[in-house]
Structure formats: C-alpha cells, structure tokens
C-alpha cells in the first residue's frame, strides 16, 4: 500500500522538485544581479543612513559607521555575508521603515494583496465578458467600439487614469476618500470593513481598468478562432442558437488563454499597483518600493526584488497548471503527474490484442497504364 502510494506520488514529487530547483536558480541569479547593481550604485550608504544630519558627523564617525556595517569589506565578502543571512531568512533591516525587511514586506504585501486581488478578479471578469462580446459580434459596431476602447486603454498611463478617477470621484463628487487605506487619524480598532472597502475601490478600479485591455484583445481573438472551428459549424448545423454556440462551444476555448494571460500578467499588475498606490497614497508594497528607492533603502529594495520574483514565478506556474486543466491539449508535467492518479495509462497486457489492419495495396496511379 505504502509502496503503491509512493510510486503514484513520485512523478508529482519530481515535477514539484523540478520547479523548486528552477525557482531557486532564478532567485540566485536575481540576487546576484541585483546585489551587483546595488554595489555599483553611486549612492553612499552612510549618507543615505545619516540623511540630513550629514553635516553634523565627522570623518571618524563615518568610518565607524562604515566599519560597523562592514562597508569597508570588498564587495564579494559583503555579498557572501548577505547571502549567508538570506539563506537563514534574514533580509536585513529597512532604513526607511526601521523594521526587519521580511516584516515590512509581509505586512505591506497583505495590504497590497487586497488591492491586487480585487483588481485582478475585476479586470479578468470584465475583460473576458467584453472580449467574448466583441468576438461574437466581430466586425460590428460593438466589436469596433470595444476594440478601440481596449487599444486606447492599453496606451493610457496607469497613473493618469488614477488621477482622473481621483478627480472625478473623490474631488468633484466626493464619493470616495482622497487617500490612504483607512480614514486619516482613525485608531486601528475603529476601522470598519466598510472603511477599508471604500478606500480600496478607486485604486482597485484604476488597476483593473488598465488591466482589462490585454484580456479583451486576447479573448476576442480566441473567440473568433473558436467560432471558425468545425465543432461550431456542426453545432450550428444541428440548430444550436447563437447564444448556445457561445455558451456551450466557445466559452471554454476562450477561457484558457484569458486565464493564462491573467496569471502571466501578475508582474504587470504589481507594476500598476506601484503607480496606483502612489496616486492614492495607499500604503502597500508598491508604495514601499517607491519609498525604498527614494529613501535609498538598499536592503528593502533587494528584498522586494526577490519577493516579486517569487510572486511572478508562482503566478506563471499556477497559470500553466490552470491552463492545462482547461485545455487538455496542453501537456504540463505537473498536471500529467496529477492525472496519473485517477486516469492511468491502460495496462497493455489487459487490453485485448487488436488485429492489425489489412494492408491495402496502393492503387495504380491512373495514366501510367495508358501510356
């Protein structure tokens, strides 16, 4: 029994290990590259740390700070020390937030996650709906309006869209707060869920408006492609209604690329959240990225680089998995390993032997005999 379980789990384990190894290699490369970048930055870490008091300290004190932090050591040695701490899960201390980097990232990411998840779901649903609509009405007015709209949105700067929404809904109409994730000056225990949602709406709307465009265009393409398929022609010949064709024969075809795209766009989503959070002063990881770069907070920047690498990687992998589940023609090693559990290859010994097809002699090409 145990052996059976092990043989079944083995391909799954192998697929998972392969992914983990790839992620680790990628992280190592990103860590090395970003550390090299930071080491070559003209920003002086002591200046960055001391900030405005730079005039108040003498060269001896500077040297002391540098020595205490090991800034005199050669870059390779510093890299080794940083890597050693990294492996133990210690990313150092953020200068801007005066807290451990892991803590800052964890806390900030949770705030961002609410924003990004809302925008992700919203842009996926709206984009998919509009894409199906445009694809189904290909060449008509609806299609042209949706396409024009999508291409325009793709050209719009995220922060500009955010500023427009801010002006219209917060400043002019006063429906939404102007900034932040919670009411200004409110105690943490007084903040209600409604408050949070109210502060979330505009940044999430900004992010999803910008994220809609690629989903619309890809879904439309997939719908048009599926509508041209033989199975749709057959369904039509059998008397399926236009709506029925879309619902039963096209939606699943169109969903696969849309889902893959949505997961692959997590990096873009994060980039958008950096801008949206800046517009709405929303205290998430995006705002922390900007603050870290402006405050010359190297440990936090490195930590964010590593964290977002994992974020994008996981997004891509999950996207591949879901894509393979939706579209059985796509072969994914992890899905194959999972499928192996309940849909094993038929045992060749059990199957009845199939009679080989009789070999039909190829007919003489016409014309040769006439010669």
């Amino acid at each position: 029994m145990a052996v059976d379980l092990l043989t079944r789990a083995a391909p799954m384990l192998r697929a998972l290990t392969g992914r983990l190894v790839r992620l680790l290699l990628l992280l190592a490369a990103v860590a090395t590259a970003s550390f090299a970048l930071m080491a070559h930055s003209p920003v002086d870490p002591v200046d960055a740390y001391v900030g405005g008091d730079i005039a108040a300290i003498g060269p001896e004190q500077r040297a002391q700070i540098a020595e205490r932090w090991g800034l005199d050591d050669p870059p390779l040695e510093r890299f080794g020390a940083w890597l050693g701490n990294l492996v133990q899960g210690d990313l150092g201390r953020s200068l801007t937030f005066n807290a451990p980097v892991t803590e800052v990232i964890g806390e900030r990411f949770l705030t961002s996650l609410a924003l990004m998840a809302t925008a992700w779901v919203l842009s996926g649903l709206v984009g998919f709906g509009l894409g199906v609509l445009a694809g189904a009405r290909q060449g008509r007015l609806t299609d042209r309006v949706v396409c024009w709209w999508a291409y325009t949105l793709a050209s719009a700067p995220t922060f500009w869209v955010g500023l427009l929404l801010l002006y219209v809904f917060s400043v002019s109409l006063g429906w939404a707060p102007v900034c932040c994730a919670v009411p200004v000056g409110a105690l943490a225990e007084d903040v209600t869920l409604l408050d949070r949602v109210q502060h979330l709406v505009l940044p999430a709307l900004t992010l999803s408006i910008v994220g809609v465009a690629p989903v619309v265009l890809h879904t439309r393409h997939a719908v048009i492609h599926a509508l041209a398929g033989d199975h749709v022609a057959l369904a039509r010949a059998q008397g399926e209604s236009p709506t029925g064709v879309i619902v039963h024969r096209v939606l699943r075809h169109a969903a696969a690329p849309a889902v893959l795209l949505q997961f692959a766009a997590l990096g873009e989503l994060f980039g958008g959240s950096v801008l949206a959070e800046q517009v709405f002063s929303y205290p998430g990881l995006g705002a922390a990225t900007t603050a870290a770069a402006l405050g010359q907070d190297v440990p936090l920047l490195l930590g964010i680089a590593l964290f977002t690498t994992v974020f994008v990687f996981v997004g891509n992998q999950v996207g591949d998995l879901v894509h393979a589940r939706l579209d059985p023609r796509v072969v994914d090693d992890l899905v194959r390993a999972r499928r192996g559990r309940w849909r094993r290859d038929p045992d060749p010994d059990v199957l009845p032997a199939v009679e080989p097809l009789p070999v039909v002699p190829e007919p003489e090409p016409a014309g040769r005999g006439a010669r």
Partner: protein
Amino acid sequence: MSAAVAVPVPGRLGDRRTRTLAYVGLAVLVVLGVLVAGTLAGDAAQTTDLADRNLGPSAEHWFGTDRLGRDMLARTLAGLRLSLVVGVAAAAVSAVVALLLASAAAVFGGVVDRAVGWLVDLFLALPHLVLLVLLAFALGGGTGAVVAAVALTHWPTLTRVLRGRAREVMSSDYVAVSRQLGRGRWWIARHHLAGHLTGHFVVGTVLLFPHAILHEAALSFLGLGVDPGQPSIGILLAESMRYLTAGAWWLAVLPGLCLLVVVKLVDAIGENTRALLDPRSHHL
C-alpha cells in the same frame, strides 16, 4: 462647396493600407510639430508669471497655468519632446540588442541559444517596473539614468519573439537542404533568416516605442527619473497631484491626454503594420 468636400467618402479609410499610411503621415506631422514646438517652447515652459497662477484653460493659456504661472501648453510640449527623445533612444537601443541576441542565438545555436533564452527569462523574472526602479536607482537617477534604464529593459520580449521565429525557420526543411549543400551559417542567416525576421523586427520595434514612453513617464512620476526641474509628462502629473484636490483638473488631464494621443498613434501604426504583414494573425 465645403460641405460636399467634408463628407467622408465611405470606405476611403476602410482599407487598412490607406489607414496605416494616414496614421504614419499623421504621426510624422505630430512628431515634427512636437519637436519644433517643444524646442521653441523650452523658454516659455520655464517662464514664471506669479500674477497668473493656477489659471484654468483660456484663450491665452490653452492648457492653463501651474502654481508658478508657467504656461502648461509649453510645459506639455517640452515634456512630450523629452518623451519622444527617450522613446526613440530606448526603442532603438532595445531593438539593436534584441536583434543581435536573437541572431546570435539563431546562427550559433547550442550554448549561445540557451544562454540567450536564460538571459531573457532572467530579465522577465522581475516585474518590469521593479527592474526599472532598481536600474534607475543603481545608475544614480537623473535623465541619463532613466534613458539607460528604459533602453536596457525593453529588449527581452522582442528577443523572445525573434528567437522563436528564428528557431522555426532554422528547423525548416529548406534550411536543412541548404546546410547539406554546404552553405555556411552566415549565408543561411543572410539569405533564409533575414527575410523572415524583418517584418517581426519592424513591428516589434515600433511597438517598443509606446512602452518606453509610458515607462519613462511612470519613473518620472514616481520621482525616480528625470530631474524635477525639467518638464516631463511624468513630472507634470506628479506636480498636479497636490493641486488636484483644489480643483485644478487641467494640470493633470490635458498633459496626460496628449501623452495618450501620442502613444496611441504609434501603437496604431504598429498594430496596423503587424496586421498588414501577417494578415492571418488578425481576423479583421
């Protein structure tokens, strides 16, 4: 008479070829206009007039004025000029890098091909904006750093497209035959590969341009880019944020709209050219 002329002839712009040419003509006009006007407006963009602060759009100041009484139209034009320069520089550098890497991967194959693929994966591992922030920071900020950061990060997607296409061509039968006939790598690359890649390369380069412009604006908006004294669309929008709550909508809306129009124009050229070069990819 004018009414008869003004009525659009149906179908005249319905042809994609004509439409693309019209877009290209319009883009040339806009680019020239922005370059000339932006250069001429350089002084006006910095001239302060404290008597005319925070004015809305009027006949005198089409785009209104900012907190120091500077004319926003002049500032927008100067900003657009900077955007175009950054966009052209970044698209050109990225296109050259992408072409070199993709051709190297196709011609040498093996280890070089794998190394290029790996490099592309590495650059795409981070969110693009985070990579830009890291690079701009590492290069010390300022206009030069932004141009370099934007130029150095836009090649991976184009490289991936070109590499995929090159692989397809290199594994085709006629290339195998050509190899059997004793043709060298370079001969094959020149005669069999170049023709297949040109279209993708042109379209890809044109489509890099809007991305580059938007990323420059984003970096400047975050305060990591162009020097704050220099008018750039990103900086204008970042400055407008403080006055938006006071109702100065023109500070944000109009410069952003101009950027949007320029980006959309170039994007439309790219997409239409793509559809013209590869009609099967577009069911329109």
